[in-house]
């Protein structure tokens, strides 16, 4: 079985009832009850004012989680390659465009259009952080977290570089919501490194597996894992929050899942 290994140096987390990694560990570890409430997205302070005005939820979510992870790792965001993985980008913006295109006035605004590209968050990230590094911008529907993790791991292993994974999804409005019921914003960011360093939190060793994905014992957290693609990464964060070496299985494609051996540093 072929494996890919990396060290997690920083974690960013933002979602319903999960605000930041430090404050969420006790919830994920089961020491505190999970109390969901709507995700609060901080304003994107790093962006110049023009870009700040134009940025949608996916941009704010990406910046918040990515910067949290990188600050925790004590690194400079401009130095890191990046992997952005999202099931489908900005649903609010997509709805507004499709509504206009079905109307008598199809003149969508330039801002609407440039926010419609799947790499909008990656573009704003690069402007905000000054990162001129390579970025991979991915989608794999419900498998987007797993696809992003694999891409980030292959950067670490094949190119021998640190990288930051930013897996983020935001809510879809009606009528799209009925076809794609993503209820709220949720994001996980991980800084991954090829070598062990002082700030390493855990070593992860990942392989493809036929095993079923782990479920979360808390019913509300499990519904979150199912409802938002980026939250399919929660069993990994729970594993780290529990502070025990263990093996977790993350959801990925219908044909294969990701087995993750976690060894704490």
């Amino acid at each position, binding site marked *: 079985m072929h494996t890919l290994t990396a060290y997690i140096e920083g974690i960013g987390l933002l979602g319903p009832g999960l605000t930041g990694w430090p404050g969420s560990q006790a919830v994920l570890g089961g020491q505190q009850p999970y109390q969901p409430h709507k995700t609060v997205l901080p304003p994107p302070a790093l962006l110049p004012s023009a870009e700040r005005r134009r940025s949608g939820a996916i941009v704010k979510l990406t910046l918040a989680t990515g910067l949290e992870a990188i600050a925790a790792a004590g690194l400079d965001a401009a130095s890191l390659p990046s992997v952005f993985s999202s099931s489908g980008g900005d649903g609010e913006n997509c709805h507004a465009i*499709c509504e206009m295109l079905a109307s008598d006035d199809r003149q*969508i605004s330039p801002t609407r*259009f440039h926010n419609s590209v799947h790499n909008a968050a990656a573009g704003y990230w690069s402007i905000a952080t000054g990162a001129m590094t*390579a970025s991979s*911008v991915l989608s794999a529907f419900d498998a987007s977290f797993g696809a992003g993790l694999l891409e980030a791991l292959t950067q670490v*292993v094949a190119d021998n570089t640190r990288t930051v994974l930013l897996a983020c999804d935001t809510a879809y409005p009606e009528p799209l919501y009925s076809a794609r019921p993503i209820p709220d914003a949720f994001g996980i960011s991980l800084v991954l490194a090829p070598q062990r360093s002082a700030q390493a939190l855990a070593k992860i060793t990942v392989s493809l597996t036929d095993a079923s994905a782990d479920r979360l014992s808390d019913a509300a957290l499990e519904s979150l894992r199912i409802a938002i693609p980026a939250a399919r990464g929660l069993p990994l964060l729970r594993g780290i929050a529990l502070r025990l070496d263990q093996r977790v299985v993350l959801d990925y494609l219908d044909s294969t899942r990701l087995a993750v051996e976690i060894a704490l540093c």
Partner: protein
Amino acid sequence: MNPLWLSHFTATSSIGRGLDQTLAALRQRRGGLAPCAFDTVDLATFVGEVAGVDAVRLPAHLADFDCRNNRLALLGLEQDGFVAAVHAAIAKYGAQRIGVFLGTSTAGILQTELAYRRRDPVTGALPADFIYRTTHNTFSVADFTRHYFGLTGPAVVVSSACSSSAKVFSSARRMMAAGLIDAAVVGGVDSLCLTTLYGFSSLGLTSEQACRPFDAQRNGISIGEAAAFALLERTPDHLDADAVLLLGTGESSDAYHMSSPHPEGLGARMAMQDALNMAGLNPSEIDYINLHGTATQTNDAAECKAVQSVFGPGTPCSSTKGATGHALGAAGGVEAVICALVLQHGLLPAGLNTRQLDPALDLDYLLDNREQPAAHVLSNSFGFGGTNCSLIFSRAG
């Protein structure tokens, strides 16, 4: 990097289905752009539409995937024996050891645009026959492709606007180097839709003529559509001299603006230099550059500065978007295949529609086809959000 072998490849665009038609169009300098008659679009612009997409029928068991983008994907897959090549690779490596990496910018969003015209007048609901997952969702073209072939390994869509299907080569390279897969189906599929036609129009970036890259009078892009695929395998010990290899990839971000390139082409320069470094080549060893060359004022000016800064003014180059139109998320894939044809046939293709070169853009921009052997070529793909990717392809011998 260890060079990767493009063991099979194919492209379908407005200039033709498959390699023979594409090569013939390049030789005859025949373009595929025509005044836009797509759907109900009322814009004065030219498009590169692929003929016959609506007539394509998906296999019954994949009916949920039915939309223009996946029809175009299937039309593209069925050219040049590509399907048989993937089946042979499955027999050789196993279905789980072949990855799928496809680029698209808008996937099947047209399906949602059309569904929004049929919303329930009372509830606003979308029609019951609308299926988001297998049509509109960005992943649908890769999901369709893996189901079509029965592939069970890693699969992903890269969607970074107009660099998407160049970047897939880089993602596939990494996953093969990391040992997770033995082969990869890479490429790109993007199809006409109202979002991009009206969107680029809103930015004033669509030309009312057939686009004229590097022309003094250039005034915007012509949107196209295309499907391009390549099968990447590790390089075997013995290859024919005209086999095509991927030697280098370079990626960067502009960190500058969402819809304008860095004015000095700084990110583009970094991508080209990184690709050269990975390939272990000097700029003077590149025999032809397939430019991003969209025919907007800013792209061509910035790309020219970037190319000059790496290569000087002397490397033969052209943009093939005057022929195909700008296939957006499929452009990198189509132009990778055109680069493979350049290497195999010693044909450096002229840029079409360009009547008078912009005197400010001092490059060896080809206005006529040049019959000249090429050993190494470079392809540029840049996109919104300041995303850049350069690829280097080479002959095996």
